[in-house]
């Protein structure tokens, strides 16, 4: 606790001193009489001053919230002794703002008094935030000494990206050997009926279709499709982003898309992993379950565009991050050649690849003049060339803008994948 004189103390001491000196100099006792109450006030105040005893407890309702969702912060101020001139100064962390009514508090608390202040704080964009700190100041009863009480930190808040409910997902070309919710094309133990065939030596008796056997007078068995799961890798571009002045950008959208996709695939019992490919590499191995969703979100919350000259390619990604037969969903604004080359490399290695292009076009505008317009059109053409090249190699690309649901590019990519699988007419 730090004590310092207030402006009032300085003013009163000055008034007392000026009155006394002027009275003596001018020989006017009236001036001394006018200044005397100020001097007595200061003397009595300094003798009777006591340090205010103040305790502040901070309770944050939740440490995890969705972006733009208010979190209730309860401040409990307890006064051990009478406190006057109470001032609470809230220093919010970067990216955090107050939702609803601003902070208000009583200026005076009696001894043993209790004051509870509810405050709503929110983070407008996903990420890990320092909520800030609260500093309390109080003066003594006479307002002569100001006491600065110790700072109370509000702790951290993790703002999770908002998720979109997705009905249609990209189907992987190949499934894994482990059990899941997807019906495999091959035959095995499962629920979905595939076909009937004559019994051969080695078939299990429980597979015999007794009705068909009775009708045909020869044993038949029912074949079924097994239920398998898939490996899905969300391959995020963190090399470059296009950002607007309002705080939004392609990386924020990409992380939202990745979170929605991870939640949807994990809900269908698929194994999901994430790779942030850019200046720094972020990797989460493909696993199952709700815990994996939070593992991916936690990893993605730290993703940011780090400028790098390093010529990185797919060989920088540890092999276990890209399991064989995995469906790789690239989420990128397709601005950096290193990421585009990595996508081409992945496709060349035989991975099942689809790309959701987080469109940077809403964040980019044509420059002034004819040459600016021409440059913009050339840039658009170059982007179209990249898309065409990816499509030619068998990786469907769909553009996604902030103002449309994520389901739209997924449907487009899904259709693209179906077309690619269709045999070409001779």
């Amino acid at each position, binding site marked *: 606790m730090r004590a310092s004189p*207030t*402006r*009032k103390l300085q*003013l*009163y001491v000055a*008034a007392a001193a000026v009155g006394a000196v002027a009275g003596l100099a001018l020989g006017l*006792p*009236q001036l*001394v*009489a*006018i200044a*005397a*109450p*100020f001097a*007595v*006030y200061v003397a009595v105040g300094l003798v009777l001053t006591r340090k205010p005893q103040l305790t502040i407890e901070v309770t944050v309702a939740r440490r995890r919230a969705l972006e733009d969702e208010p979190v209730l912060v309860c401040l409990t101020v307890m006064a051990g002794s009478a406190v*006057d*001139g109470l001032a609470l100064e809230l220093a919010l962390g970067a990216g955090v703002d107050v939702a609803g009514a601003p902070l208000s508090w009583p*200026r*005076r608390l009696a001894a043993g008094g209790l004051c509870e202040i509810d405050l709503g704080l929110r983070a407008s964009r996903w990420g890990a935030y320092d909520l800030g700190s609260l500093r309390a100041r109080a*003066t003594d*009863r006479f*307002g002569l000494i100001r006491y600065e009480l110790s700072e109370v930190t509000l702790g951290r808040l993790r703002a999770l990206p908002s998720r979109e409910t997705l009905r249609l997902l990209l189907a992987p070309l190949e499934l894994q050997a482990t059990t899941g919710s997807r019906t495999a094309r091959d035959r095995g133990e499962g629920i979905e009926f595939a076909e009937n065939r004559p019994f051969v030596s080695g078939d299990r008796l429980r597979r015999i279709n007794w009705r068909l056997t009775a009708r045909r007078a020869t044993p038949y068995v029912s074949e079924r499709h097994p239920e398998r799961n898939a490996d899905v890798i969300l391959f995020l571009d963190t090399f470059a982003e296009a950002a607007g002045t309002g705080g939004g950008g392609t990386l924020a959208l990409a992380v939202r898309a990745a979170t929605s996709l991870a939640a949807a695939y994990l809900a269908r019992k698929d194994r999901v992993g994430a790779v942030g490919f850019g200046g720094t590499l972020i990797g989460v191995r493909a696993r199952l379950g709700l815990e994996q969703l939070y593992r991916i979100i936690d990893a993605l919350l730290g993703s940011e565009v780090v400028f790098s000259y390093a010529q990185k390619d797919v060989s920088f990604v540890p092999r276990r991050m890209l399991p064989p037969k995995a469906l790789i969903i690239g989420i990128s604004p397709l601005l950096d050649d290193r990421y585009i080359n990595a996508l081409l490399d992945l496709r060349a290695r035989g991975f099942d690849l689809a790309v959701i292009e987080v469109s940077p076009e809403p964040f980019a505008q044509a420059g002034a003049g004819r040459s600016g317009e021409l440059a913009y059109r050339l840039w658009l053409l170059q982007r179209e060339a990249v898309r065409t090249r990816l499509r030619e190699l068998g990786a469907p690309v769909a553009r996604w803008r902030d103002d449309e649901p994520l389901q739209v590019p997924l449907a487009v990519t899904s259709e693209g994948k179906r077309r690619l699988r269709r045999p070409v007419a001779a």
Partner: protein
Amino acid sequence: MTETFLVPAIAAALLVCAEALTGPRRDPAWLGGVGIAAVAIAAVVVLAATAAVGRSIGLTVAGAAAAVAAVGLLRFLLRVLLGR
């Protein structure tokens, strides 16, 4: 007598105004108490000065008492008007 009435009243008025401007307590009870204390202190000083120059103590005491009464009346009126 006028002087012994005016000086404590001016002292009280100045201190009460300063107190009301700087805070932290601005309630009428506190301001009234501060005003009466200021009148008393200023009256004591005026009395001491009067005694030192050999003027009439009776008139001085009467002036100081009038000043205390004026401030007390003001405090009473404030409390009545503000309902405290």
